[in-house]
């Protein structure tokens, strides 16, 4: 009996999935089918409920930016034993980053732009006790302000540049804003990010790519920017040679819905490429980490071949670590199953975008989609891309990052990473919500563990759980002595049929401390 049920079940199970050569006669199959027909419906329902996120209303509701009531209840967040979470600020609009000045006061940026195409005023706020805020500086309609740091009496902000171009801004304590870097190629899918300042006085920042995988397409029209910037495309950091592959797509820029166009990589929408074509490298460029002396000076390339290098922090051994959002299954060159990455940065290295993911070549069946089998678009690769320090969930949107340095908080040397959460189904199909939590990562062996997650039967944002936990964590920051971890929670942003629906006034800042010291 044991023999029979185990081995046979396994093989017959496999059998139905492979079917071929299973040896069942049609009649037997029919009999079995009739016998179990009533159960099939139940089974299919179960499968549907279990696997189809869409059924759970992820695609629900009309698109709106209007504020909604957000329940904030720390007990809905699960943490390892000994840790405590509290909300220290609420009602923020699209908060993205947090830092401390030399007095230990807390400052937060509000983005001023969100996916879904909504512009508000970017702001730098000081958090006062009791959850009140004071405005330190405001920006132009050119958000998102995506990152913030403080160094020697000034704030440094990365400005996404949706309306003009990307910039790094220096902001004095009395709110005077001067650009330190301008004209960054930040009007596409991904923005100017960072910044962090090294002990030797260099300001490092990231610049995300214009597109998902190198080719401008209808997905960028859906995002909104292709309408605003029809000439915009990715810029390589060094000279590249193209294989000549081109991509046919609908042309949403003309009123004729049947109109098609052909676009090459690193080219403007509707411009085909040729085999052997050389695209000149430039600085600034797309998908790169760049730096300059914080006092001002020449821009230098640190590393490139990233897609959306969002979070950065100096980790053990003063190595720069960067989180990078992997490819989506969208657009003219969709890629399946690409994770988000934590990279340890080796200066001068190319990290693989747009032909590698995870250090693996994209031209294998692992990454193919029903639409197209990804092929290399670069004829030569600058170097063999390195392996990541860790591979995070596909579509988890691994964003802000900081390292624990204090034994009283624990996990010294581990990276804490804010996972913003998926934007499915626009980025690809999923069986369940990914991200919406804070994880800790051991950068030496790549092991990832949940740190702060919502309670509930399945993982997901608080608005889906119908409780008062985490929504979309976007940044994490330890206080200067490493005793408390602050989590910036962007707020409620469901994905609707018309795209992202980020709700104003739903952002929260959480603070996590350890109650008992070992």
């Amino acid at each position, binding site marked *: 009996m044991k023999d029979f049920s*185990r081995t*046979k079940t396994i093989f017959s199970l496999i059998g139905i999935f492979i079917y071929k050569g299973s040896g069942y006669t049609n009649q037997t199959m029919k009999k079995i089918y009739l016998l179990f027909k009533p159960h099939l419906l139940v*089974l299919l329902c*179960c499968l549907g409920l279990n696997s189809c996120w869409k059924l759970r209303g992820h695609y629900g509701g009309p698109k709106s930016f209007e504020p909604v009531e957000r329940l904030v209840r720390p007990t809905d967040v*699960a943490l390892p034993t000994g840790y405590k979470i509290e909300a220290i600020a609420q009602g923020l609009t699209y908060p993205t980053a947090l830092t401390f000045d030399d007095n230990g006061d807390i400052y937060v940026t509000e983005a001023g732009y969100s996916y879904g195409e909504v512009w508000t005023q970017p702001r730098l706020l000081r958090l006062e006790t009791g959850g009140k805020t004071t405005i330190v500086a405001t920006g132009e309609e050119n958000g998102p302000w995506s990152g913030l740091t403080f160094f020697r009496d000034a704030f440094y902000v990365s400005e996404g540049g949706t309306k003009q171009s990307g910039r790094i801004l220096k902001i004095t304590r009395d709110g005077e804003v001067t650009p330190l870097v301008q004209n960054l190629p930040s009007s596409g899918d991904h923005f100017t990010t960072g910044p962090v300042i090294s002990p030797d006085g260099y300001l490092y920042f990231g610049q995300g790519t214009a597109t998902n995988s190198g080719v401008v397409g209808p997905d960028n029209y859906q995002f909104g920017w292709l309408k605003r910037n029809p000439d915009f495309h990715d810029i390589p950091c060094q000279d590249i040679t193209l294989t000549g592959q081109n991509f046919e797509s609908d042309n949403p820029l003309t009123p004729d819905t049947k109109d098609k166009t052909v676009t090459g990589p690193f080219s403007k929408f509707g411009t085909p490429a040729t085999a052997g074509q050389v695209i000149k490298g430039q600085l600034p460029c797309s998908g790169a980490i760049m730096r300059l002396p914080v006092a001002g000076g020449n821009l230098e390339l640190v590393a490139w071949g990233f897609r959306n290098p969002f979070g950065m922090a100096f980790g053990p051994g003063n190595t720069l670590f960067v989180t990078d959002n992997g490819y989506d299954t969208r657009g003219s060159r969709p890629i399946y*199953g690409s994770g988000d990455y934590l990279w340890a940065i080796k200066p001068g290295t190319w990290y693989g975008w747009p032909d590698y993911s995870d250090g693996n070549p994209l031209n294998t069946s692992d990454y193919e989609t029903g639409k197209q089998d990804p092929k290399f678009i670069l004829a030569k690769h600058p170097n063999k891309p390195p392996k990541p320090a860790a591979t995070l969930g*596909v*579509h988890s949107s691994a964003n802000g990052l900081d390292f624990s340095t204090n034994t009283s908080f624990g996990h010294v040397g581990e990276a804490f990473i804010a996972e913003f959460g998926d934007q499915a189904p626009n980025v690809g199909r999923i069986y369940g919500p990914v991200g919406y939590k804070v994880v800790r990562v051991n950068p030496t062996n790549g092991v990832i563990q949940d740190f702060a997650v919502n309670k509930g039967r399945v993982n997901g944002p608080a608005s889906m759980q119908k409780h008062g936990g985490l929504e979309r964590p976007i940044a994490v920051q330890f206080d200067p002595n490493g005793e408390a971890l602050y989590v910036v929670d962007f707020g409620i942003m469901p994905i609707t049929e018309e795209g992202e629906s980020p709700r104003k006034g739903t952002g929260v800042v959480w603070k996590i401390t350890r109650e008992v010291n070992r």
Partner: protein
Amino acid sequence: MKNTYSLTGFSLFFGVAVILLAAGCGSARRSEPLRGPLTLNEQLQRGQIVFMNNCHKCHPGGEAGVGPSINNVPLTKGILKFRVRSKAFLLGLGRMPSFKKHEISRQELNDLVRYIKVLKKHKEDLPTATL
């Protein structure tokens, strides 16, 4: 002969039913904030690293993501190994990549499967390393 067919057929559908029903019901969540820390011996630590390098991105912590949850599905060691090595699933329509011996060695696959089994059984206050 005929009898064997229908019995096989029964176990076939029963197996599918168990898997799908289980997948529809139990929670797949096993992580430290919810279930407490998981104590791992050396083999399980190796298995955890294989999991993190190869599986976590689509089955985060064994929960659903780009792939379905695998913590709440009763899968035998044999099925697990088969799923990792072979791409054929649902008439070859499956999306999960297959992992060949140069990607996951036989030893690593044993460690991985052990780790998945232990992770699945992880409940609070249970001395899990002994499972």
